[in-house]
């Protein structure tokens, strides 16, 4: 079998492959490791559960088409809330390129304060800003990280910036992995102009050029071990009608890298009996996110411009990061309260809506459980501290929009009609039950946190499993704490670091 893209959907009979390295998952972590190792001369097989959709096709799709083909569970993934916690809608990619293909392209280095916590409190080696610098630079160059120019800001973001300035704080420009962006506000669904350099564009083709095989529709169920070391993976090809598991999959490899993300990596490890007694799947962080919509008298047309172009750390001391965004008009429509004439009357003014978002730098309240099918069940209990931050975040965003001249805001509370500034003041946000709050997450992290203590952590600071030889975990699941910022660049830099260590470590 030669390098290239293959679909297990069309394969008949069991599939058995051999390689130096098998990488489970083709997202930000997996694609980076696969490419770095392939370019060092190793033979690599990448296995992806989702389909392979060329970026050009993804870019031509309507948002709902992208969601049905490339997003896990059609974006219906929801955590089960524990205590007074909102149900959190978690969106992830299930496609060659993983969630990287579906991000807004936002790139942040790991904040210095977070790295200080990792090195000083958790005792991780090699995570000072100086030591991580070369990895950040390497990835930033590979994916063309650039600052979003002011003239690409949507009117929606400009209005929020005006409000922020009036309240005494400034928005900062974001950096993204783009080249030739025309500001279509569609990054999450595939760029119409191929301007977003996600890993399916910037990394995987390089790996394929070096002979890597990328297999779509492959469900990995277990890591195979022998004599205390990983020797491959096994699972099923999703080649039966309706995408059901069919023929057997077996990949023999001298090294196994699991990069299935914080949602699925813990599940694969548990099914394989790895990490017993190490709280695998616990301590998941999500960056619970909340949107604020505001109606202005002037037309806003927030879809015209970069989807995400500006952010603020003004409320960082409260554990809040404000971040610019916009969503498809259909999603905006869903947030418009009312039914029938009232709903369509509200929806008619969608072009007058501005939007901004905020995320909570959360404590790890999530747990990944084995579910009845092949998908995990994830519960999330928001800590008291994080729960108390929701009203503060809602007020901060609403106040900023009112300062910019908004007529009404639509807080993320199910069934709540638009309110003016007086109406917002009268709202007792602290008493709104968690189940009535709309909440979303795009950044599941943790569950297999790296650490220096072999008796407690699953992997070391290079992603190398403490207990099983030649097994590495390289994805968002090893990130030991919440980052407070979008994690794509952080995951890719950690993956580069791990890959370079692997490259320098002879295979068993």
């Amino acid at each position, binding site marked *: 079998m030669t390098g290239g893209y293959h679909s297990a959907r069309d394969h008949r009979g069991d599939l058995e492959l051999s390689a130096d390295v098998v990488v489970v998952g083709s997202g930000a972590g997996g694609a980076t490791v696969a490419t770095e190792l392939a370019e060092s001369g190793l033979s690599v097989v990448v296995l992806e559960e989702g389909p392979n959709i060329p970026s050009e096709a993804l870019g031509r799709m309507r948002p709902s088409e992208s969601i049905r083909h490339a997003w896990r569970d059609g974006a219906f993934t929801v955590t089960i809330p524990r205590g007074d916690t909102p149900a959190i809608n978690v969106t992830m990619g299930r496609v060659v390129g993983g969630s990287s293909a579906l991000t807004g392209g936002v790139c942040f280095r790991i904040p210095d304060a977070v790295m200080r916590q990792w090195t000083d409190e958790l005792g991780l080696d090699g995570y000072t800003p100086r030591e991580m610098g070369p990895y950040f630079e390497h990835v930033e160059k590979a994916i063309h990280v650039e600052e979003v120019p002011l003239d690409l800001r949507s009117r929606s973001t400009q209005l929020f910036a005006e409000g922020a300035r009036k309240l005494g704080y400034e928005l900062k420009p974001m950096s993204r992995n783009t080249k030739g962006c*025309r500001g279509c506000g569609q990054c999450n669904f595939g760029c119409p102009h191929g301007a977003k350099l996600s890993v399916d564009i910037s990394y995987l083709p390089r790996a394929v050029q070096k002979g890597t095989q990328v297999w779509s529709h492959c469900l990995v169920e277990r890591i195979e071990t022998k004599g205390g070391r990983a020797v491959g993976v096994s699972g099923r090809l999703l080649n039966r009608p309706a995408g059901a598991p069919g023929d057997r999959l077996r990949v023999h490899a001298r090294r196994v890298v699991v990069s299935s993300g914080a949602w699925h990596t813990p599940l694969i490890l548990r099914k394989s009996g790895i990490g017993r007694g190490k709280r695998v799947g616990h301590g998941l962080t999500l960056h619970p996110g909340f949107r604020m919509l505001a109606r202005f008298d002037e037309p806003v047309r927030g879809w015209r411009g970069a989807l995400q172009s500006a952010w603020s750390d003004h409320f960082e001391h409260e554990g809040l990061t404000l971040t610019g965004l916009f969503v*498809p008009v259909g999603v905006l429509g869903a947030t418009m309260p009312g039914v029938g004439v009232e709903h369509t009357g509200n929806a008619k003014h*969608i072009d007058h809506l501005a939007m901004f978002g905020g995320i909570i730098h959360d404590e790890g309240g999530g747990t990944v459980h084995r579910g009845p099918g092949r998908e995990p069940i994830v519960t999330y209990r928001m800590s008291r501290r994080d729960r108390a931050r929701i009203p503060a975040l809602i007020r901060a965003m609403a106040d900023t929009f009112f300062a910019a001249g908004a007529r009404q805001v639509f807080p993320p509370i199910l069934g709540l009609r638009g309110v003016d500034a007086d109406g917002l003041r009268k709202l007792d946000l602290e008493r709104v039950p968690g189940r009535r709050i709309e909440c979303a997450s795009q950044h599941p992290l943790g569950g297999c946190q790296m650490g220096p203590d072999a008796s407690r952590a699953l992997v070391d600071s290079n992603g190398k499993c403490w207990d099983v030889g030649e097994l590495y975990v390289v994805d968002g699941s090893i990130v030991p704490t919440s980052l407070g910022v979008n994690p794509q660049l952080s995951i890719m830099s950690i993956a580069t670091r791990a890959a370079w260590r692997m490259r320098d470590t002879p295979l068993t």
Partner: protein
Amino acid sequence: MNDVAGSRLTTARVEVDDRVVGRVGMTPRMREATRAVAETLFTTEDGPPPPERLAWLVDDLDDFFGQAGTRARFAYRLCLLAVSVLAPLMIFRLPPFRRLARETRTRALERMERSSLGLAVFGAKAALCILYYEHPDAARFIGYDASCLRDDA
């Protein structure tokens, strides 16, 4: 408006070679219930949406759940079931929702949206709105033109 932006305002679907084949999206009963909720939700001052637009919406949603998978379909089905059974009961009417008059359905959905079961209405509404407002006529109604900031670049 450039070609790319314009091409997004369409009812057509992009061909995906590696798509999942043979998965059922919605059962006939789900399709009926979906149509009833959509007709209620998207009624304007001029009346309900044209039948052909509702038919397109139901067909496209069927394809959506055929691709998105069993979990998505299960979640949507739960929301739809809650709306079908509980929304009428909330205004002291007998289910199913789809057999009620449109005005009665509107009251039932409104009541449920403001209740502690609002999440079920939101789930159904989200799936329907994402697709419905992609229809070129519905997009035009809300002023969406799919244009980019640098269309002339």
